């Protein structure tokens, strides 16, 4: 007899469901938080939300374990022991704020640049950047410089949009999708949803990646490229397409600078666009045989022939580009060895791209009118899409590699055409329409504009008369002219060295710079704790704001404890990096779905409110009223009432009387409307404006009406990046601002206006050590269930991945006689570590890799010091110098992309040898004392409600 016990099958688990925004990574999905008795019982995805449409990743679904983590800070902390020891005592908020003001106020009055304020995984950069601006320090940036600034900068300078934050594949219409070097870097759920859509249709997916895990594992084809050579592969693909005549000439002529004439005259204008008296770039009209403005109605740009004037030929951009691409160095056979990809595979991939783009017509029956006034009966698609992220970005040739990829997209006509890459509002927005970086105005004075921006030439650099950097991280200097996200990985090293000048206070928000977010971690910890002969610290003050007991907390003199993501207001703003999708302009909020309670302690406060409070106490412009009282009660007040320009505030939804989107006066009821709508606002892009946006009148008018821009701003995609050429001209001796002698060759070489490939300097250095000295490439990738250092404090996630291994290619495993359970010594030009290893077949044969940020320092994150994260988990960071070795010129270059300053994590080269029996983790560090104690010995989530 079958049994039929009775069960309660219709539990009502919540008193209330509150909808807010996830912060378990940078993806910013909509979540529904189920509350029972005022506490968090369950979190799931919000089906109405434009980012995740109801799904949720492993991290998001473990949010309750993050919210309840024993590593949560509970009160402001003051260091009582040596830096790094973790010895701290809890203090009151009044004492904490008084201390902070006491350190910062004199700096602002005398030398504001002596405050370096760097934020990590900050989703409020339009606030934090504005705060730095008002304080008057140029030394501000978030973590983009060690993340993916190469992708971001190359995208903006080439296309006026970039992957992830400002662009996405047309998942619904693509017929071929190619991914370069993507792991769980960004856009976690939208990429997974998109891949699922492709798979449901049986659309072919190709992964170009040294390692076949995650997304690459489900790709229909896998190209096991050797790290750092993606640019060569892309240039070879482009050559194949050119040689076959399989390129979209009409698209190139109409929408890119392919036809724009490049000034051929010797002198200070050589290589710049040829312009008319009104500054409009000129093309040679094929019908008239004479120059006309690119933007002129009816222009027929000649991509083949130049225009000769005064005996000088001005050739179109496309001729220069074709010369570059057709160079024999870019033939498939020529690149095959370095790429680790046979020439036949490269040829076949080029053929697949061409077939997908051109052989199966796709057009949407949507008439549209371009900015020249020409009507188009339909929107013609090129259904081949790409995505790329850190695998390309984190090399010192990543900017030019990302450039090459965007040029390839243009050759195929596959940007902003149906089936290709689509921009997300506020993009399209080209570099010229972005802000410039702003430098110091002097003591007590704010910067004249935001500290970060997009330089268009040497005049926008932040350097002094001798060419020396004005910023501590040397962003926007001749060493990294287009460092549009700053260079956070150089901040501690430069502060310690007093290069270019000493600073007084390092102020970090949500950045674990004493561990996994720094290169050369052991030395970095030493710099943070280093003392002068008089016993004082070399870096006098360190403040950090964080929600959890990270390794960085122990190195801070003062800790301002933040809330969890469920206890706070936030705005994911169109002024910053919003949640828009290609079909919708959108922004969102977080709000305190539960109150931040830390019984028995001074409590925690949302960092953004603390920052505004600090700003008011310092009397920063914009943060105080005329009578000196605080301008904003807290961050929520700022989100509603701050205006960057009249009618434009942090949140675009429900402005004015509540009916306005985009522009409008502040609305006191705005946050209630967001909350009622699930925490987000969106305005759908009209169908007729949804493609060809940079040139589509309907988009330009809609974007202007919505406040994304102040006037229609059509522009050509830049196959030839003129700002780069301006830097080259300076290096060639033109203009009032020229690089110092020792940087001229570097600027001339790397700031090439056309994409090119060069070996990353780190690789050159490894190769210079002799054949076989460092034969292997070493990489990390982010595991899908973890977000940087955060995952390990999560009781569920750490059970999925509590220790990392270094995966070795099978040939190496066999040839070196490795066996299961072995450890290995891994040596780079910078140092040696000893780590546990395992074999893997599905990876490039010259590559080793591991998961990033799993290793933890003993004592941090409220973990047992014997936790596997501390005894077996490891960082490759110890092998990566923030400076490259002296190459005989007495100088040590930053281990960064020479254009953007992007941290070149993935240029790492190593050799691996088997460690003998009894090996253990090296380097090992003494345990930090935990300011929050240890976690409990069991978790029974849900037990309170049975």
């Amino acid at each position, binding site marked *: 007899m079958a049994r039929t016990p009775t069960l309660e099958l219709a539990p009502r*688990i919540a008193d209330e469901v509150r909808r807010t925004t996830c912060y378990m990574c940078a993806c910013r999905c909509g979540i529904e938080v189920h509350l029972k008795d005022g506490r968090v019982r369950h979190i799931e995805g919000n089906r109405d939300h434009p980012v995740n449409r109801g*799904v949720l*990743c492993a991290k998001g679904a473990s949010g309750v374990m993050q919210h309840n983590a024993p590593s949560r800070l509970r009160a402001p902390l003051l260091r009582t022991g040596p830096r790094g020891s973790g010895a701290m005592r809890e203090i009151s908020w009044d004492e904490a704020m008084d201390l902070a003001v006491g350190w910062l106020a004199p700096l602002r009055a005398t030398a504001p640049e002596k405050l370096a304020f760097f934020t990590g995984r900050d989703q409020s950069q339009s606030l934090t950047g504005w705060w730095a601006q008002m304080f008057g320090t140029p030394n501000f940036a978030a973590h983009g410089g060690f993340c993916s600034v190469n992708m971001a900068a190359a995208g903006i300078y080439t296309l006026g949009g970039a992957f992830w934050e400002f662009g996405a594949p047309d998942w619904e219409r693509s017929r071929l999708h190619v991914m370069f070097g993507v792991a769980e870097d960004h856009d976690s759920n939208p990429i997974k949803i998109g891949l699922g859509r492709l*798979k449901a249709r049986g659309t072919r997916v190709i992964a170009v990646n040294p390692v076949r895990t995650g997304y690459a594992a*489900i790709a229909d084809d896998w190209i096991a490229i050797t790290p750092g050579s993606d640019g060569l592969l892309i240039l070879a693909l482009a050559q194949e397409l050119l040689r076959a005549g399989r390129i979209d*000439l009409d698209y190139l002529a109409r929408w890119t600078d392919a036809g724009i004439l490049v000034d051929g005259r010797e002198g200070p204008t050589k290589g710049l666009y040829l312009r008319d008296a009104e500054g409009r770039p000129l093309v040679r009209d094929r019908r008239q045989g004479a120059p006309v403005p690119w933007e002129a109605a009816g222009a027929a740009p000649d991509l083949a022939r130049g225009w000769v004037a005064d005996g000088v030929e001005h050739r179109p951009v496309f001729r220069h580009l074709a010369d570059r691409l057709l160079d024999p160095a870019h033939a498939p056979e020529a690149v095959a060895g370095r790429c680790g990809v046979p020439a036949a595979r490269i*040829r076949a991939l080029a053929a697949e791209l061409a077939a997908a783009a051109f052989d199966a017509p796709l057009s949407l029956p949507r008439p549209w009118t371009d900015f020249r006034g020409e009507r188009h009966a339909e929107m013609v698609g090129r259904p081949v899409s790409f995505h790329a992220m850190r695998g390309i970005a984190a090399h010192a040739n990543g900017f030019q590699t990302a450039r090459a990829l965007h040029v390839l997209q243009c050759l195929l006509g596959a940007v902003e055409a149906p089936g290709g890459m689509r921009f997300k509002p506020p993009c399209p927005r080209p570099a010229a329409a972005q802000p410039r970086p702003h430098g110091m105005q002097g003591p007590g004075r704010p910067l004249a504009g935001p500290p970060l921006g997009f330089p268009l030439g040497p005049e926008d650099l932040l350097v002094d008369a001798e060419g020396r950097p004005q910023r501590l991280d040397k962003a926007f200097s001749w060493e990294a002219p287009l460092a549009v996200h700053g260079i956070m990985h150089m901040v501690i090293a430069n502060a310690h060295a007093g290069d270019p000048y000493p600073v007084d206070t390092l102020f970090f928000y949500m950045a674990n710079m004493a561990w996994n977010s720094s290169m050369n971690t052991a030395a970095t910890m030493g710099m943070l704790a280093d003392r002068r002969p008089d016993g004082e610290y070399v870096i006098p003050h360190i403040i950090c704001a964080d929600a959890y007991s990270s390794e960085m907390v122990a190195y801070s003199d003062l800790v301002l404890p933040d809330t969890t993501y469920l206890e706070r207001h936030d705005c994911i703003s169109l002024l910053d990096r919003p949640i828009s999708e290609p079909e919708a302009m959108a922004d969102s909020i977080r709000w305190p779905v539960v109150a931040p309670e830390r019984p028995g302690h001074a409590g925690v406060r949302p960092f953004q409110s603390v920052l505004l409070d600090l700003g008011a106490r310092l009397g920063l412009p914009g943060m105080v009223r005329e009578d000196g009282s605080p301008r904003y009660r807290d961050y929520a007040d700022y989100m509603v009432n701050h205006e960057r320009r009249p009618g434009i505030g942090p949140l675009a939804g429900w402005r004015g009387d509540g009916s306005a989107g985009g522009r409008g006066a502040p609305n006191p009821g705005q946050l209630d409307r967001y909350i009622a709508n699930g925490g987000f606002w969106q305005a759908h892009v009209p169908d007729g404006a949804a493609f060809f946006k940079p040139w589509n009148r309907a988009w330009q008018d809609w974007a202007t009406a919505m406040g994304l821009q102040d006037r229609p701003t059509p522009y050509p995609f830049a196959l030839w990046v003129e700002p780069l050429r301006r830097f080259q001209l300076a290096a060639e001796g033109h203009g009032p601002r020229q690089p110092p002698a020792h940087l001229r060759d570097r600027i001339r070489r790397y700031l090439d206006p056309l994409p090119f490939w060069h070996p990353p300097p780190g690789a050159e250095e490894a190769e210079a050590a002799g054949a076989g000295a460092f034969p292997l490439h070493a990489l990390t990738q982010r595991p899908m269930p973890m977000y940087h250092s955060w995952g390990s404090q999560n*009781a569920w996630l750490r059970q999925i991945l509590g220790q990392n291994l270094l995966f070795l290619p099978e040939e190496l495993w066999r040839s070196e006689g490795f066996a299961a359970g072995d450890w290995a010594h891994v040596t780079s030009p910078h140092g040696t570590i000893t780590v546990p290893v395992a074999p893997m077949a*599905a990876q490039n044969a010259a590559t080793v890799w591991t998961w990033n940020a799993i290793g933890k320092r003993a004592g941090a994150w409220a973990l047992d010091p014997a936790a596997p994260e501390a005894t077996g988990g490891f960082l490759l960071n110890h092998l990566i110098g923030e400076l490259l070795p002296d190459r005989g010129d007495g100088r040590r270059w930053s281990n960064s992309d020479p254009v953007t300053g992007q941290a070149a994590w993935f240029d790492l080269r190593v050799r691996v040898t088997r460690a003998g029996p009894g090996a253990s983790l090296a380097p090992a560090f003494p345990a930090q004392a935990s300011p929050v104690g240890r976690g409990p010995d069991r978790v029974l989530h849900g037990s309170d409600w049975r």
Partner: protein
Amino acid sequence: MTALPARTEKSLGLVIDLDTCVGCQACVTSCKEWNSASGTHLPLADLDPYGASPRGSFLNRVHSFEVVPAAGPAVVVHFPRSCLHCADAPCVTVCPTGASWKRAEDGIVLVDEGACIGCGLCAWACPYGARELDGAAGVMKKCTLCVDRIGNPNLPAADRVPACVKACPTGARHFGDLADPASAVSRLVAEREGFALMPEQGTRPVNRYLPPRPRGPAGAAPLAPAAAAAPGGFLGWLDRALDRL
């Protein structure tokens, strides 16, 4: 010792697409969360959760395997593993107390935690390793197909699916009645040649897996150098092509 129903009206189960699963573990934690929080069963305990040997019970785990084919490069397959709700469930018939049971109406295999003595015979009998003994409660834990979601009128209709199915970001997990040949899941199994796991064990599992599609190059022929080989080379081709625009 415990009887199975002679037949079930429906055969509810999962169809898991191995061509699409990226191994992200969303199904693992969303399952753990709901099935701890809902209160229908005892929480899925985590012992030593911040220590040297964290051990918790999970109803669903994802394993990643490398497969090295005879020809071609190695492939990685992500394989989510949970109860398959077998028609001839040996975990039920082996149960000495009747705690393990299969519902007659829809075939879901459940554990009556009040009757479970934690003897572990069911886990031993299950060829799929789909059951875990909870370290705190001492009772056997297994996938319930979120029996307290799928018919729960307190949830929005769209959410009346297992937590793993709702969460799965790639849409690799499908839920439905595999006894109904017209159901979406049955059609998917038919179209994609879904298979039963280890049918030789004779347990007649309900869940199905969709196999990875064949991997490898598409076999595209290289492009003919139509432009490079044209009269006047690439520039000649370009000039003529521009005339045709």
